């Protein structure tokens, strides 16, 4: 009997704790119905119905009583600079006096920080291609560790994905002597989708194989001289 009660109480406690943690958890890229934004993007709501205004409140955690009222730009936009991770609560209220504010729509928002990709251009001789080693600064790490890579060659403004070059490093195949602009594009992989790509370009010089040298024996020193025994 006592054991049963203890178990029940424990279970309730666990349940309450989980609920609390859930309810009070901050928005993550995987939060349900989260809206992912790249850093620097505005959040734009549809225009409110005539005679109504949007009211937006913010909370870093999910709540029913958000307190921070967000001033909208143009009545329906949250400027990129103000956009942050958290829960935005959208409600409407008619402009008529005494009108009640509507219930709130909860909008989880996660603003992805920009990735910083780079690679050091490794020039090489055409007969021995060198690997272009990419380096990525991931500001979302460890929240997001899965990234998507794609290498391109860029000619003018046109980029051409290099088939199969989807890893962090890339070793050119059948390079062409000369200078080739390579581009590394990196994005977050969330829920199988890729977000907020960032690129970096570098020229890589591919040298040709030198011709065979022509030397006369005279030009060669150190040769063994005939000895007499």
């Amino acid at each position, binding site marked *: 009997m006592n054991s049963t009660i203890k178990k029940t109480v424990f279970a309730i406690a666990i349940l309450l704790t989980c609920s609390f943690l859930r309810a009070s958890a901050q928005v993550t890229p995987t939060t349900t119905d989260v809206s992912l934004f790249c850093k620097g993007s505005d959040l734009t*709501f549809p225009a409110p119905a005539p005679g109504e205004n949007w009211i937006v409140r913010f909370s870093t955690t999910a709540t029913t009583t958000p307190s921070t009222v967000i001033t909208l730009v143009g009545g329906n936009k949250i400027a990129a600079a103000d956009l942050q991770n958290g829960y935005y609560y959208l409600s409407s209220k008619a402009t008529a006096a005494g009108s009640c504010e509507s219930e709130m729509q909860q909008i989880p928002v996660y603003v992805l920080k920009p990735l910083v990709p780079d690679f050091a251009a490794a020039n090489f001789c055409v007969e021995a291609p060198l690997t272009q080693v990419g380096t990525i600064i991931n500001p979302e790490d460890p929240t997001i560790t899965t990234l998507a890579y794609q290498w391109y060659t860029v000619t003018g403004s046109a980029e051409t994905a290099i088939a199969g070059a989807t890893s962090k490093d890339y070793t050119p195949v059948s390079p062409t002597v000369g200078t080739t602009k390579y581009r590394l594009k990196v994005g977050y992989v969330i829920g199988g989708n890729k977000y907020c790509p960032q690129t970096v370009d570098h020229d890589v010089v591919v040298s040709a194989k030198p011709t065979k040298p022509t030397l006369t024996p005279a030009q060669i020193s150190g040769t063994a001289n005939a000895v007499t025994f």
Partner: protein
Amino acid sequence: MALPGASYAQLCTNQSRVYAGFQDSQEAAGPLGSSVSVTNNNLAVDTDPSTAATLSINSLLSSSSVTQYLEFTNNGTHSGKRVITAGTPFVIKVSIPAAALSVAGTIEIGTFTGLNTSTKAAVRTSLYSASTVGLLSGAGAIEITLTPAQAYEGVYVKLSASLTIGVKAEIYGAYILEDNPLDIDCDKPIDVLTGVNGAGLLNATATVTNPYAAIDADPLYATYATLNAGLQAANEVYLTALFAKAGQPLDSVKIVYDGGGGLNLLSGFSIQPYLGTATAGGAFNNGNVTIKPVAGTTKFEVSFPVAAAFDRVKISWGGLLAIGAELHIYNVTKVIPKPDPLIDGVPLSFKNVCLGNATTLSINNLQQCTTYNWYADKTTTTPLFTGSTYSLGVLGLGDHVYYVESRRNNCISSISERVKVTIRVNPLPVVSVSNVTSCSGSTVNLAVNTPQAGITYNWYDASTNGTLISTGSTYTTPVLTAVTTYYVEAIDQVTGCASSSRGALTVNVKPLAIVPASTGLANICVGEVTTLSNSAAGGTWSSLNPLVAAVNATTGEVSALAAGTATIRYSIPDGLTHCANAVDFNLTVNGKPGLTLGTDPEICAGFTVASLTYSNPVNAPVTYSISWAASGFTAVTDQPLPAASIPLTIPANATPGIYNGILTIKNASGCSSQFNFSIKINPKPPAPHVLVTTNSQY
């Protein structure tokens, strides 16, 4: 020359002159045609001081003398001679006729015994001798007083001269003073001495004529003595009137005189009283006496009291302004002063006295040798009382008149006019007062019953003596807590008479009824009712501030009507053994707090906070409470009242609708007021459903 006056002084018994009554003479003329004579011999032994015998000598080639013996007798004959004991002074009056002033002669005066009328021999004892008697008073007479050391039978006067013609001396007589049991005319002058003072007496031109006219008591003042100062300013003529008896201090001198129609009173006029030869007090002159005219005449009268006893008064006249002028003396008398009566020791002629008080009359200017007679009127001869202090005892109501005269003892005419004294015996005022009853702790207004005008009422704390508390017909006591008796005296403001006794007025002070303090709530709110109580029975309740609180007179139930303070009194009425008393209960009626609510709040569903606005708070509300009719709303109790807006907590799950509440506010006095209000909860629109577009995905 010393003229002792002691024999005159302060003797109530009369002393009268006893003149030598028998005379003889002895003539001893020189040879060769000398002659001596005595003429008018008997005029020296009569009792008239103005007549004299004359001794004359004409001595041609030798010395001559003439002696006159003046013998004291019992019957005027030699055989009836008397022996005068040694030490008995005698007085002899002599003068030198004006024509003989410049002639040298010697007068010898002495006593004798054993006169032989045949041989003219006698045993003489010379006491006095002078050759220039005229220098004493010029042509005037003088009195020479001598006191023999041996017994004597008479006095002789011997005039002698040598180789001189026309020597004369006038002998007026010789006398001794002896007690006289008979009454005499004390104030009447009996003799006059005249003469001249100053230089050049032997040829002085000053004269006194008809000197006895100054003392003849002529009531019409028809005769007079004339003082003529002559032509020598250095001389001064005088007239001395001698009275039969020395007066008493404060007797007056009265002189009637004029200047012959041209008297200049501003200078040269002097009056000096004497007792014998000694001055009695200071001299009087026109500068220090009051001179008044005698009505209907051109004469003047001067009268003044003399502080010392005197038996003569000397009137002197001379100086530059007196040259060629005359002074007529019509009469010189001594006057006994009028008595100055005292009524109960105070110099008064009229006095109001009060019935029941003894009165005593007495004399202020009391004199020796004087009898004071008190009469019923001015003319009655039989006095009511004789003596200087007349105790009248207690007199009856009305005026009582007495006349008092002073009469010099053993004198015939030395009687003053009668002085009237009136004593008015006044009734004593009556004071009537009645006892009163008062209550302890109160002042009491007391009053005399039927107060009379002109009567002063004095209030005392004792029946006799005591302290004068107040004056007036009414008196307000201090706060009395015990029975107290006051005593009222009535005093007639005109007569000063006081009531025979003080009227006693007792204030019976009853204690106040004992009323304990009332009990009950001392602070109530407007509109509330409370009941006060008091353990003393029989009292009634009343409100001294009925607009603030009303009280039921019987039950003590108090109804608070308006903010303020009210005194609720519980009164016990007067009783037989106690006085009404009351006790007050201070009640404070506090106003109810109030405010004006704003419009009922209206919120949207889901809101948990609303506010109830208000304004115009009154009576200082400090807390509030809120109760709700609907369940689910949380009541609020006694919260501090915020300014302007009262917060409302709305259940989050309150469904839209109208909810009624009651707001109760209280102030610091505990008074409260309630206000109904309602709140409307409006439904909340559903949440919007917008799709947030992003461009983050590629």
